[in-house]
């Protein structure tokens, strides 16, 4: 946002437009000028980005960058309020920019119609004062965090799933995303919105909160507060607040950082071709490949136990498998002959690893199918639906 002498004077129209914001203590004429000189980068023109960008534009943040390489899909529209039915198929940045320009012509919208990557993140971040993260996957979340730390930008991060929202404010020097979550969950352990669903209005709450926190930082309000982490439980209508401190051992913002350049975040998160297979969970159960599983199944004494939910099982499973959801495995432990070995299967090999470990601890011989049913299906093996 630069020095005060760089802040633009307000026109009479702007005096009228922002009048009820400028009367707030701590904002005033200079605060509004400061906002108009500010530059905020919004990662993702999706659910969170829609709400955050809308309020930032309405507040008169002078430059808003939108980063998204996706196009609008029909299934986005229940929560991504920057886009409407006629925008299906358009680039999200084009659709979002059009809406935001219409909302407030004072704001310059910069379209970054690309996916953020280790190759472009630092260059893009350098042009902005603050970053709002509304990305929708773990590799992007760690990339955004690391790039924000490396460029010294405040980061307002949020994430949503089902009826829960998480919001964190990271100011340079007061901790980062990795101080809170040093490692991502094992691939497949935490469902995404496509699998688990998301309450549309929750995105509005959390994205609006991101705008609130971003505007506070830009205006210098509550500037003495260090970072903070908040959880919103929409079903219980409760907010919970946790302290957030810098981890001195953090590999990115700690005292002796070991990550000093952007890395391969897909690999870090155990996703993609370059990922280390079965990076986690590190359970005591033995993981087997599809070929090894087929060899095991030559023995008719081996039973296949599918620990997914009934609706997942019904959609497709290995022929001959028995569906016993994870939380019911103790039933199997009390009824199944422990001399008979088990091949445990789930969607991606995470739940089955935990399930097989549990069964091993109860005296069974249990293997977990690496990659799960999705891998089985993708490799062209027989499967059936009920």
């Amino acid at each position, binding site marked *: 946002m630069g020095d005060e002498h760089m802040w633009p004077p307000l026109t009479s129209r702007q005096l009228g437009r922002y009048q009820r914001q400028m009367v707030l203590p701590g904002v005033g004429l200079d605060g509004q000028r400061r906002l108009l000189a500010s530059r905020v980068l919004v990662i993702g023109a999706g659910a969170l980005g829609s709400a955050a960008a809308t309020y930032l534009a309405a507040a008169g943040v002078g430059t808003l960058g939108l980063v998204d390489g996706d196009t609008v899909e029909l299934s986005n529209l229940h929560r991504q309020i920057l886009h409407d039915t006629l925008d299906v198929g358009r680039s999200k940045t084009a659709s979002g920019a059009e809406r935001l320009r219409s909302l407030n012509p004072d704001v310059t919208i910069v379209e970054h119609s690309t996916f953020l990557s280790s190759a472009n993140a630092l260059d893009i971040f350098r042009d902005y004062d603050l970053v709002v993260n509304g990305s929708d996957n773990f590799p992007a979340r760690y990339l955004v965090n690391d790039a924000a730390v490396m460029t010294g930008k405040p980061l307002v991060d949020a994430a949503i799933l089902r009826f829960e929202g998480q919001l964190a404010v990271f100011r340079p020097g007061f901790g980062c995303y990795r101080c809170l979550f*040093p490692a991502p969950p094992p691939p497949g352990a935490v469902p995404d919105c496509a699998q688990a669903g998301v309450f549309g209005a929750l995105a509005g709450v959390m994205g609006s909160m991101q705008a609130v926190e971003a505007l506070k930082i830009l205006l210098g309000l509550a500037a003495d507060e260090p970072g903070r982490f908040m959880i919103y439980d929409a079903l219980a209508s409760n907010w919970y607040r946790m302290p957030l401190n810098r981890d001195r051992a953090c590999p990115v913002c700690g005292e002796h950082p070991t990550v000093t350049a952007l890395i391969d975040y897909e690999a870090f998160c155990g996703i993609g071709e370059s990922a280390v297979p079965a990076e986690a969970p590190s359970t005591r159960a033995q993981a087997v490949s599809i070929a090894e599983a087929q060899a095991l199944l030559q023995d008719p004494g081996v039973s296949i136990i599918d620990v997914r939910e009934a609706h997942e099982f019904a959609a497709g499973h290995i022929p001959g498998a028995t569906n016993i959801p994870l939380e019911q495995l103790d039933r199997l432990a009390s009824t199944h002959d422990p001399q008979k070995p088990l091949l445990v299967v789930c969607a991606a090999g995470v739940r089955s690893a935990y399930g097989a470990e549990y069964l091993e601890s109860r005296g069974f011989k249990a293997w977990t199918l690496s990659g799960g049913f999705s891998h089985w299906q993708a490799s062209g093996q027989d499967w059936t639906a009920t």
Partner: protein
Amino acid sequence: MITVHLPIDLAGQFKMEAVLNTDAGDLRDLVAHLDRMRPGMAGWLVEADGRFRQHLSIFVSGRRLETRSPASGRLDDGADVWILRAVSGG
């Protein structure tokens, strides 16, 4: 009495409430209690070496435990335990 907040998606997976009360005296008791309620849950929380899994963030009465802390620390009566893991939806 201890109040425990589980990751909502994990609680849903095990068909249990995300907020529970227990009289566990330490974290080991707490994990054992959860595992008795839902056999197999301990494996989701704790590694074979008895430490919390690396991707979990554990807060006890407002203080974040170090990453991969031993699941054994004492819990005072009235303690509030949060077991958190990141979500990624946006």
